[in-house]
């Protein structure tokens, strides 16, 4: 009995075979040096090829992108504060990368599936993940915060670049299913040096699967500047794999939205993978345990502060007369409310029970785990009536 759900009949190629399709010309990088639709000063720059992809964005939606960025920056600030106050063990701030993440996150369809890194909280927010769930793992209450299938976003990956392969494999599954969803891999500039990211691009190109690689080049991998990772612009690596690429101003939410839509559309139509380099800047530390003053120049931070993703959209909204007092107040109120709820959620988060240690290691009972759990629970019971009361 053979499958009837698959896209083709046995004996035929499901994948676009690499032969005889090897082309002499590598796929081009499009959009020039940097796709930009809003200047750092907040001017709307006309770019016919890309304007087309955001021409449907209404004034209201522009305000909504602004609100998303404001809210995620507020979540980020609140989480950083919670770490400083001892409520979180660690936090990886995304300050400065709001446009890259909201632009990409808002381009997605519900049925697309995202494989994020630990810093992609803005994308997770766009997928509907509760702010409290964004910090659950950083408080140490669980290894991850949410149900991937509820929000169609995998949990945050900590091993650098590992998730690029998961996204590619998921895209192979989409292709098998004959669906027009897209898998999206999010990673940073440091990850592009990892073998997994390079292998993912080999697989994605060979099988022409619907995956979009979004590299947020935030210029720093902890203390290592991007020039240590790459001798050329990262976007230019893609053509060597046979993957078309775009290099976008990652602090320009409209431009990121446009290029992500282009890549998603290509993938949905069977056009295979796309690589996007979103050029942005990590304005904060790598994590709350990091000290960037040891390795980077304060002037550099100043330069990038002048290109702030929120400030430039704010300026554009002002010019367009959209940033009324009412909109400002509403946005601020929303951000404050989310932060308040986040704080309350964190402080009231119940501690896990000791025997949760042994849960979910396997999907079916395992004799080794069961024995150790049994021994440890009896050990804990030997203290019953004292400190372990109710712990079981």
């Amino acid at each position: 009995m053979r499958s009837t759900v698959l896209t083709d009949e046995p004996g035929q190629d499901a994948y676009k075979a690499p032969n005889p399709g090897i082309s002499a010309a590598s796929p081009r990088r499009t959009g020039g040096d940097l796709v930009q639709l809003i200047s750092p000063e907040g001017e709307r720059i006309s770019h016919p090829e890309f304007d087309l992809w955001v021409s449907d964005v209404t004034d209201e939606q522009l305000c909504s992108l602004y609100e998303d960025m404001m809210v995620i920056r507020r979540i980020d600030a609140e989480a950083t504060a919670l770490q400083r106050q001892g409520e979180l063990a660690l936090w990886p701030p995304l300050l400065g990368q709001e446009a890259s993440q909201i632009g990409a996150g808002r381009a997605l369809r519900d049925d697309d599936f995202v494989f994020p890194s630990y810093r992609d909280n803005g994308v997770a927010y766009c997928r509907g993940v509760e702010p409290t769930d964004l910090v659950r793992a950083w408080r140490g209450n669980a290894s991850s915060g949410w149900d991937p299938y509820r929000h169609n976003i995998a949990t945050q990956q900590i091993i650098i670049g590992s998730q690029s392969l998961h996204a590619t494999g998921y895209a192979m599954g989409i292709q098998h299913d004959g669906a027009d969803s897209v898998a999206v891999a999010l990673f940073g500039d440091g990850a592009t040096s990892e073998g997994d990211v390079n292998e993912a691009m080999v697989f994605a190109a060979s099988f022409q699967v619907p995956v979009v690689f979004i590299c947020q080049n935030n210029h720093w991998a902890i203390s290592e500047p991007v020039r240590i990772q790459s001798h050329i612009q990262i976007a230019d690596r893609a053509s060597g794999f046979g993957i078309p690429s775009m290099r976008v101003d990652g602090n320009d939410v409209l431009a990121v939205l446009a290029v992500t839509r282009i890549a998603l559309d290509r993938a949905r139509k069977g056009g295979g993978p796309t690589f996007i380099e979103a050029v942005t800047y990590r304005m904060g530390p790598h994590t709350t345990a990091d000290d960037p003053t040891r390795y980077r120049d304060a002037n550099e931070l100043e330069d990038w502060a002048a290109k702030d993703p929120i400030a430039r959209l704010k300026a554009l909204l002002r010019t367009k007369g959209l940033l009324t007092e009412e909109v400002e107040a509403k946005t601020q109120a929303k951000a404050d409310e989310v932060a308040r709820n986040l704080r309350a959620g964190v402080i009231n988060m119940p501690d896990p029970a000791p025997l949760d240690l042994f849960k979910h290691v396997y999907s079916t009972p395992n004799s080794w785990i069961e024995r150790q759990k049994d021994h440890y629970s009896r050990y804990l019971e030997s203290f019953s009536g004292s400190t372990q009361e109710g712990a079981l």
Partner: protein
Amino acid sequence: MSKLTFARAINAGLRKSLENDPKVVLMGEDIGALGGVFRVTDGLQKDFGKHRVVDTPLAESAIIGTAVGLAYRGYRPVCEIQFDGFIYPAFDQIVSQVAKMHYRTQGRVKMPITIRVPFGGGIGSPEHHSESPEAYFTHTSGLRVISVSNPQDAYTMIQQAIASDDPVLYFEPKRRYHDKGEVDETADLSTALSMEKARVVTPGSDVTLVTYGPLVKTANDAAMAAADEGVSVEVIDLRSLAPIDFQAVEASVRKTGRLVITHEAAQSGGLGAEIAASITERCFNYLESAPVRITGFDIPYPYSKLEMHHLPDLDRILDGVDRALGRGNSLSGLEG
């Protein structure tokens, strides 16, 4: 019943899984038109298509990493690692992703991935083609590790591994690929012995001899030779290496009071150490002598002209049996 080689038995099991579950996808290097370097997947691509029997680019980490993504999407990938010594580029994906995903996601994301690994020596190969890396994986929580020793188990257990919602490393003894045995292809999976259970393959009463994979045949031969000398050796085929069916080993040792463990893998930090320690903990008072390990040496797998010295053979196993019995043996008269 039909008489099949070990390799054909795995092939038949893979075929059955492909037929029964449209979500089963085979991936690996050279597994398509060639049928794998050992021909284990012979004919499967022709019958099921390139979309279900996928020749991948040569990147082991990506074979496993994309399998993780396919599993996320609801597929049951069966990955072939061409040779034992080629698994290390995939080590990170296996240990950090495949093994931990279920725990990380509180059981929400299952990883029903089977990783087939032809392993062990004895075929005169160059470096990296004869290794026994199983202990790296039995030390990693979240993985199930099994090893098969005969065509019937090979046929049944590959299907059990694929049907498992947990990831399974399936170690195939490559030097046994051409051994033939009776295989009941109508065997009902639901009533077959669980892949977690060990099996007594030769009953005995004087010494318990524990092994798995390629050495089960050698151990059985040793038991026959010992019987000629009036020593009754009980041979246990572990089948599952993680978890190990310690109850079965314990029951045997309580009866015999003596334990010999043999594997091709190096001794230090190996499965023999785990078995000796666990059995000593569980039935110390039943032991008449210290557990004995007969294993590969703590050296890189040697060049093939010397591999017969490295691999435990019938005589070295019998020497170990003599040690367990306190009879004259190679170490008699030596301290330690």
